[in-house]
Structure formats: C-alpha cells, structure tokens
C-alpha cells in the first residue's frame, strides 16, 4: 500500500508528508501569510533551479549560478543609478543583469563545447570570477540608494500574490512546455542521454549545450535582479552557496546528474520540499546548527524515497 503510493507519487508524497507534519507542529504554518511567504522565499532559488534542470539534463552542472546572482544584482543596481529617467535606467538595469547572465552562459558554453572542458571546472572557475567581479565592482560595499520603484519588481504583488512567485510559476510553465513539447527539449534529453548518438542523429549538440548554459545564466540573472529588488540593494555577497541548494533541489526532484532523465516539475517539487523544510524549521524555532543536520538528513531521505520507488 505505502509502496504502491510511493511508486506513483515518490517525492510528491514526501512533500505532502512534510506539509502535514509542519501543519500539525506549527499553528503558523498553514496561514495564508506564511504560504505566500514560503512561495516568495522559494521563488528565488527555484527560478535558478529551472535553468539548472536543463543543464543537468544534458549531463552538465552549473556552479556559477550563485555568483551570477550576486554579479547580476550588483550590475543592474549600478545601472539603475545612471542618471536618466527611471524607465530608461530600469531598462539599462535589466539589460545589464541579463547580459551578464547570457555572457557567463556563453563563456561556459564556449569552454565546454569548444575546448571540451568538463562543466564542473568551467563553472567553478566562473563562480570565483563572477564573485570576485561583484566585489571588485562594489569594493565590497552594497550598492544602495536605489529608486523606490525598483523595489516593486521583487516586492510588488498582483492580486495579493508576490511578483517573484508569479515569475517563478511562469518560468516553470515555459520550461515544462519546452522540455515536453519542443524539439529543443527533446534534444536536451538526447544530448544528456547519449551525446554521441545525438550528434550522429544530426543534432547540433554544441548549440544545445550553449543554449542551456545561456538559459541557466540568464535565469540566475533574473533571480539576482529579483533578489536585489527585494533587498533594495545590490549585494556582492548575495547568493552564496545557492549552487548547492539549487542542485539539491533538482536532484531531490528526480533528475539524474548523469543526464537524460528528469522533469522540471520534479524540480519544482524538490525546491518546495527544501524551501518548506527551512521555513518550517524556522517556525518551529529549531536552532540553525541543528537545522543544517536536519536539512542534510532530509535531502538524503527524500532521494532515498525516490530511489526505493524504482
């Protein structure tokens, strides 16, 4: 009975268990305010995780995402301070942030496809490069005194739902459609499943790889801009260790690190599982050291559950 439930729902079931548990343990958990709050908190890393899913499906990895969050946030807030009309400055800001994400993805794609260097190392190097750049650009101090309107991006609400939550849902919907219903999506799976087979089938595997890293870089930049807006400042040390959280969410969501297998819906569930865990532990007043231990254990358990299903 349990095993058949497991087979059908796997990680979703783990999430439900978690929700029920926190619902029982904390009276604050199921308040509308808290649920919106959780969705807002999850949105930042989940948006990155959507891009990371594509990267991991091709059998790659992107460790640079957290640093892109910082560097894109810093760049766009700096652009925002250019002395032009707010609309123009905002355009600059978005362009600057997204461009950084695209450039980072492009550089990663270049080294990975052209020079055949393993994604782990390429993106590890980019991670330190962008982090260093964020600090060099700001001399370690946050960029602040931003126009108030900028805060709307990350802090605004539409029908009571936070803007980042809405953006997250859109991103996941689009990525899901791409993966399931387009050639590009199919090629992502093919490249991850067997790159040589994909190449011989006439697929431009290099282009596919380029594209997924650019998508990952740009979605990280989107997160970086939203985060900067939520903090109303550009923080050079934003997004520290996001890469690990994001990868954990993707893998907990059932995507295989060897590529070729997984779904972005799984990633959404994985992101929620981890985000809810953090929120619930905070609500329950669990100390931060013990939280670390619990989060580690739950990640293991969740993946275990998923494995027992197969």
């Amino acid at each position: 009975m349990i095993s058949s439930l497991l087979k059908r729902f796997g990680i979703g079931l783990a999430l439900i268990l978690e929700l029920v548990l926190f619902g029982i343990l904390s009276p604050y958990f199921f308040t509308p305010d808290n649920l919106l709050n959780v969705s807002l908190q999850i949105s930042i890393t989940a948006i990155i995780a959507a891009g990371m899913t594509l990267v991991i499906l091709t059998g790659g990895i992107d460790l640079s995402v957290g640093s892109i969050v910082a560097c894109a946030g810093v760049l766009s807030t700096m652009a925002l301070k250019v002395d032009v009309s707010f609309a123009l400055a905002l355009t600059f800001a978005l362009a600057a942030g997204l461009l950084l994400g695209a450039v980072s993805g492009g550089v990663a794609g270049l080294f990975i496809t052209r020079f055949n260097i393993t994604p782990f190392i390429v993106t590890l190097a980019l991670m330190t490069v962008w982090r260093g750049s964020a600090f060099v650009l700001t001399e370690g101090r946050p960029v602040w005194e931003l126009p108030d309107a900028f805060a709307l991006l990350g802090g605004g609400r539409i029908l009571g739902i936070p803007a980042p939550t809405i953006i997250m849902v859109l991103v996941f919907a689009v990525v899901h459609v791409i993966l399931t219903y387009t050639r590009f999506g199919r090629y992502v799976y093919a490249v991850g499943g067997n790159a040589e087979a994909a190449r011989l089938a006439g697929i431009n595997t290099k282009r596919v790889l380029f594209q997924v890293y650019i998508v990952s870089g740009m979605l990280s930049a989107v997160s970086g801009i939203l985060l900067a807006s939520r903090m109303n400042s550009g923080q050079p040390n934003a997004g520290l260790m996001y890469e690990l959280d994001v990868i954990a969410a993707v893998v907990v969501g059932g995507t295989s690190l060897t590529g070729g297998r997984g779904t972005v819906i799984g990633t959404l569930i994985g992101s929620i599982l981890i985000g809810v865990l953090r929120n619930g532990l905070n609500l329950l007043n669990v100390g931060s050291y013990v939280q670390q231990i619990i989060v580690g254990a739950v990640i293991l358990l969740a993946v275990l559950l998923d494995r027992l299903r197969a």
Partner: protein
Amino acid sequence: GRSSSQKPTKTIGVSLLTRGHIFYRDLEEGLKAEAAKNHYELIITAAEFDLGKQISQIEDFVARKVDAIIVCPVDSKGVGPGIKEANDAGIPVFTADIAAQEGTVLSHIASDNVAGGRLAGEYIAKALNGKGTVAIINQPVITSVLDRVQGFREAIAKYPGITVVADVNGQGVRDKALEASSDILQSNPKLNAIFGINDDSALGALDAVQQFNRSGIVIVGYDATPPAADAIRKGTALKADVVQYPKQIGVTTIRMIAKHFAGETVPAVVPVEVGIVDQATLLKDQPRP
C-alpha cells in the same frame, strides 16, 4: 501596537548575522539569559551572512506573529525591506550590533565598529612609536568589518611613519587567516604589526607568527574572546584586543524590549561600551560586564 497584549510570556524572533563567531554566541547568551529572567520565548536563527536568508527569517517571524524582532543585519541597507514588512505587520523591530538604515527600528543597541578600529590603530601606533609597517588580516565582505578597517586606517593615517603594507583576506576564520598571515610574513620580513579584524583572524596571525618564529610583531585583535584573552594574558605576540561587550549588547537589547513592552519609551540608540584590553588590564582580572 500588539505590545500591549496581556500574555504572560512574549515571543521574540532573533535573526543573528552568524553563529560561526564567538561574538554572536556571547550576544546570544546575553539575550537568552535576560530573556529567561523575563520569561520571554526566543526564536533564534542565524543568516550566515546571507541577506536573502535573513529577510526570509524575518518574514517567517512575521508569519508567526512574534511580539518583537531582533535583527543583527547582514547589511544595513539591504535589510530594509524585511524590517518594513515587520513594520507593516505592527511588530516592533530592534537591531543589535549593526544598525539598519531603512525601515523603522525602535532601538539600536551596539558598539561602534569604526571607533573600535580606531582604538586598535591607536594602540598599534603607540606600540610602534609611530614608525613601522602593519598588515591587516581582513574579511572585506562584511560591512562591520569594512567599518573596523576604515577606523583602523583612519587612526594609522595620523602617523606618517606607519604604512599598511599588506591587506589580505583571512575570511574571518582561523585556518584561512593562518594561511594568509603565513604568506604576508614571507613577503614582509620586517613586519611590525598585524591587525586582525576579529579574534579568529588575530589568532590565525598569531599561529603563523609562532610557527615562523617571528619576534617583535604586535598583533591586535578584536572581540577579546576567551582564547584571545588567554593568549594576551600569556604574553604572546597578541598584545591587545578591542573589546565590545557582546553579552552586554544582548542583555541590553532584551532590557530595551522589556521597557517597550512595559509601555516606556526607549532611546533610539543605546551605546554599549567599547574598550581595548591588553595584558596589564587582563591580569588585573578585570571582570567582564
């Protein structure tokens, strides 16, 4: 606001900057000790230098409808939106150690990092008789540290005979500080003094100085944690430490909150004493506040 609630106990949410440093452990202890006296429940979290995380924590507190929030901001400006959310929910916010520059904060309880850095600079200048070279074991990714270094450099600048020859990142932890200090000892054979932006940095520098048998170097640290105080007492190269009184900051913060709950008005800024200790003062076994 909600502070007039008649509940016998109050719940207070705390978002520390980190729990990786003794300073905040002490601050936390002060909070806990004083909260226990007042029968307040504390929910203590730590942002670990991640502003996004800190804002999440504050939001969690708001969702839980705590009675007051204490924040040690990761960033003075960046924490603003979080504080504003608490303001909107009518929850009073207090900051400890690091000030917030946005949102409404009832009271800020802290010692001044720039002043502390100045104290360290002046101590070193005096010890070197206004002449020599110094290095900084820095962690230039934290605002409060940038302030300390700023104060330190300001003080040193008054002595044209003293130059800062190296400024390396020890990441505020002892192992990395040890490595960074080892390197600068090599490139500066005649180095006279080192300023460590916290005690882990100063102790890492002390490890390096001892392992390379370098004499005549004056190290000054920050916070006077027990291991550092011990090293100073023993007459090692670690000569002095700027002291903040983190426990006192914690205690004072809870006292301010209690005052607020009691309907009294609280001052916007509550300064907590900063000082500098060396072997002489420590051996007098000056009781720590």
